[in-house]
């Protein structure tokens, strides 16, 4: 029967000893099984110290380039039997977010991190995990998909998102960002939320496009309103002006600041007519920005 508490206490005492704060722990009081566990853990500390857990090394290709062994090197895995790099490029051709570069993620593979491909798009790095072993796209909706992705972020902090996909016809995918795998306090409830998949499962191009729209939206230019300056605006300026005034009057009734309540409540037909005239003048090109400012000031001072 093992006793984690006793073993943990021994480990803590061993750490104190290594920090120069106490004696070597005795294991005599432990059962034979716990003694073995404790000794194993202490030996492990001795082996591990001096290792560098986050060191990356060159890939085998980089180490053997220009040597006679290079040609004999079998290709690195996983380049997933289900998805070739050409197939992936074909699916991403419709992405329309500027140049896209797709390459085999040898750096992650040499670091022992699961990532099949690396994509550079819209100034961001995305890593692709091809999950041959998953039974279908439904499996991507489970929080396990998040767990699959989190080691990538731990090793490669510059990764904007991990695309976890199954090699079906659409390359169904879900994109995980660095925060999805963390426990977070949700607003406004204040509740603690665990790892979750907040995005829908989509074909890979759609999944990536949706994610890029989230982290790097492309804003379209607001189209310019072109009026026929001779005929004036095609809308009823008077109706619009009166509606705008009535909204302000209603807001003024609910205002708590006395001056605001008084000022907005005083707006009426006279102001609506003046603003309607101003809209028509501006649409005809008869009032520029400075003129609009001056007339609004005159209207305010006259009220």
């Amino acid at each position, binding site marked *: 029967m093992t006793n*984690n508490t006793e*073993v*943990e*206490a021994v*480990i*803590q005492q061993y*750490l*104190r000893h*290594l*920090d120069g704060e106490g004696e070597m722990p005795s294991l005599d009081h432990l059962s034979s099984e716990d003694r073995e*566990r404790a000794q*194993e*853990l202490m*030996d*492990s*500390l001795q*082996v*591990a*110290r*001096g*290792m*560098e*857990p*986050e*060191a990356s*090394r*060159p890939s*085998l290709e980089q*180490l*053997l380039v220009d*040597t006679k*062994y290079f040609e*004999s*090197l*079998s*290709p*690195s*895995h996983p380049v997933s039997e289900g998805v070739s790099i050409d197939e992936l490029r074909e699916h991403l051709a419709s992405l329309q977010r500027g140049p896209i570069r797709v390459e085999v993620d040898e750096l992650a593979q*040499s670091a*022992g*991190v699961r990532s099949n491909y690396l994509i550079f798009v819209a100034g961001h790095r995305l890593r692709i995990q091809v999950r041959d072993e998953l039974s279908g796209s439904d499996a991507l909706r489970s929080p396990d998909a998040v*767990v699959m992705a*989190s*080691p990538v972020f*731990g*090793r490669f902090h510059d990764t904007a998102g991990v695309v976890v996909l199954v090699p079906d016809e659409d390359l169904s995918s879900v994109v995980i960002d660095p925060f999805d795998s*963390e*426990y977070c306090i949700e607003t406004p409830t204040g509740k603690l939320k665990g790892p979750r998949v907040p995005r829908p499962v989509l074909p890979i191009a759609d999944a990536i496009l949706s994610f890029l729209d989230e982290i790097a939206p492309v804003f379209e230019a607001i189209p310019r309103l072109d009026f026929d300056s001779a005929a004036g605006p095609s809308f009823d300026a008077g109706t619009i002006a009166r509606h705008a005034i009535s909204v302000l009057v209603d807001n003024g009734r609910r205002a708590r600041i006395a001056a605001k309540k008084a000022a907005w409540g005083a707006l009426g037909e006279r102001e609506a007519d003046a603003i309607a005239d101003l809209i028509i003048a501006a649409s005809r090109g008869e009032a520029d920005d400075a003129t609009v400012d001056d007339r609004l000031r005159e209207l305010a001072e006259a009220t």
Partner: protein
Amino acid sequence: MTEPNADRGRHPLLADGERERLETIVDVMHQVILKILGHQRREDEERVLVGGASADDVLQESLIALLGYSPSKLKESWERLAVRIARNKAIDAIRSATRGRRDPVTGNEIQVVPLDRAVSSSGSEGPRPIELLPGGRDPEAEFTAIHQELVLRDLARDHLDDRERRIFFEIHYRGRSRADVGREVGLTGARVGQIYAEITLRLRDLAREDPLYSATWEHETDEEIRRDDT
């Protein structure tokens, strides 16, 4: 893991299906070299010794030496040989970097000696070691031990949150004190120690379920290889 049937003219470690084994061997060699060369760099720099050799250079030399070893002469596992080569190459690199350098106090030439032959320098006019190297452990045992630590590292990445991972890495691998780590994560040293102890037990339990953790390496004799061929 036993020796594969070697493709004619191709090194056994470069044979089809052996890539993963070779990656593991190189991972362990890398860590052996890093341990010997010591932590002298920031994360984003290579370790560079006087004279310009780096850990990656030593790793490359070690791998080429390993692949250059004739399979017909092998009397041990490739894994054991790999550790021996990595150790020797790393020590050679340090010796090259220190050649001709003298102790500023005694004026004696500085030498590098293994830990189990360390010479106390107090009151001695003999050579003073500048580096006490891990020694004495059987190379096969060291390969297994380092490989197991790499499996633990991967489990830590997959199963620990950011703070737990940081505590584990800093104490387990980088040898920092509990108090130091506690200051960084906003906890007392005692609490850091508790967390580390709990983590290490948890990871060990997970490791026991991982077949990679319990992998062993054996040397298949020529007779056994020929028997498999028939």
